[in-house]
């Protein structure tokens, strides 16, 4: 038996990849989401249907794109449509099963901030902004958030709601007219969080190999609840790792 080792980022990517069911239509962002989706399509989900906001529907790139509009996406897509069409005819119309979002900040109710740290009119840090995220969070049937765990990122209340998670708790999404289920899981380099079915508060439901719940609580900026059935993420398989590494160039 060989001893397999991996990085926390690889564990995060593999966990995210596993969350994608085969055959689903997935709205993919660049960075970790794109890596995770491409790992999924090369392992258990060959019929994953990847949509990039640049308008490529059914892309199957043979290497990881650096941007959401790389030529490899257009070359391998079932079809390329205009940007208005991808947002109106595909996302807004409710045709996308799964959305992947990153975040600079996320809060107790999985609201997402990618706009500013600090006050909007006088920000400490100006971030890139919304992009497609607000409507991905609103209209995809479900959303997975991928981000590294830290107290700075996991905060009681985001400085700016770029994209709505579960608002201030139960019933908020319905009141706001958001058609999708919103964030159903947050996958980090430490573990997995899911909204409590009743309170919608993010709860730790799984930890990665070698990580203890206390460490996750320590890295979270609110008093993080821990599930009684805390799961332990299975270690990455050699296949998963080799696919991740072939994509990221870390092979």
């Amino acid at each position, binding site marked *: 038996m060989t001893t397999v080792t991996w990085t926390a980022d690889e564990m995060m990517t593999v966990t995210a990849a596993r969350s994608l069911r085969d055959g689903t239509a997935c709205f993919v962002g660049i960075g970790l989401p794109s890596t995770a989706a491409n790992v999924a399509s090369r392992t258990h989900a060959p019929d994953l249907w990847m949509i990039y906001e640049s308008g490529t529907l059914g892309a199957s790139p043979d290497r990881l794109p650096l941007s959401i509009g790389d030529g490899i996406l257009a070359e391998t897509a079932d079809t390329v449509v205009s940007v208005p069409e991808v947002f*109106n005819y595909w996302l807004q119309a409710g045709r996308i099963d799964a959305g992947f979002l990153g975040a600079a900040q996320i809060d107790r109710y999985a609201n997402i901030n990618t706009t500013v740290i600090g006050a909007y009119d006088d920000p400490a840090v100006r971030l890139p902004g919304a992009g497609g995220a607000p409507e991905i969070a609103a209209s995809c049937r479900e959303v997975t958030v991928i981000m590294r765990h830290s107290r700075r990122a996991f905060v009681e209340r985001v400085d700016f709601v770029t994209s709505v998670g579960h608002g201030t708790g139960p019933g908020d999404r319905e009141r706001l007219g958001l058609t999708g289920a919103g964030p159903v899981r947050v996958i980090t380099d430490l573990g997995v969080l899911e909204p409590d079915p009743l309170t919608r508060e993010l709860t730790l439901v799984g930890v990665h190999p070698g990580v203890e719940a206390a460490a996750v609580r320590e890295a979270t900026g609110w008093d993080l609840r821990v599930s009684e059935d805390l799961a332990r993420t299975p270690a990455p398989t050699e296949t998963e790792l080799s696919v991740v590494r072939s994509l990221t160039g870390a092979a």
Partner: protein
Amino acid sequence: MAVPLDEAVRQLIHDGDTVALEGFTHLIPVAAGHEVIRQGLRDLTLVRMTPDIVYDQLIGAGCARKLVFSWGGNPGVGSLHRFRDAVTRSWPVPLEIEEHSHAGMANRYVAGASGLPFAVLRGYSGTDLAGNTPNIRTITCPFTGQELAAVPALNPDVTVIHAQRADAAGNVQLWGITGIQKEAALAADRVLVTVEEVVDELEPVPGQVILPSRVVDAVSVVPGGAAPSYAHGYYERDNAAYRAWDAIGRDREAFTAWLTELTAATGPTATGRAAAGPAAADRAADDPEPAGRGA
């Protein structure tokens, strides 16, 4: 119909104009943006869904008074530091911002291209974007009573795009990821297109968008005019140049040196060199932007 780029910019873009240099990763009109910098245009309201490094450069050069956008970053690399510096420290001049989501911006262009004063979408609900942007309002469906978002049409004074080809009559052809370019062009009062080449006849290409010459005011032939972005069928994206921009953009001094080099050079042939810069710098560890850009 083809005119030199400097002449086209001089004719069509003026201080104080609202200008959209559009492109969604692909076919970004970088050479035209550099010519705007060289001509020292000021007080522009710059519009773009995805302002990237050429907008960082325009902002750093002090061309812009305002930015209307939905995602401002260096795709796959990180933040735009000239943009940050302008927003948080007003360097070199203060930068007003108006911020939307992609869906909102795309529909604003669609309304502009359609001759409508506004567009309707399911969007913004519950976000802090709505409260911080007067240009996001609500509208009630007269049939169902549902409340939806409304955004005003975007009608730039000038839209600038880069395309693969034009014919001698000025009909323009682009393909690959064509993004929002058709709508941005049709929404504008004036349209400037830089192209890789002018051909006798536009041979049809799958996935093409054609802009008939009657909606195009000037065509300038600028081979490589989208670099370091790419032109499908002509050249690839120069990912190293995007990575390299991070170190230049982070530092006012390095940026000023870059700017001096750009403005000293004349004409679009200098573009490729100027955009390249030093070797790729990794994203600094303290950079708090999202790991994935979300979309």
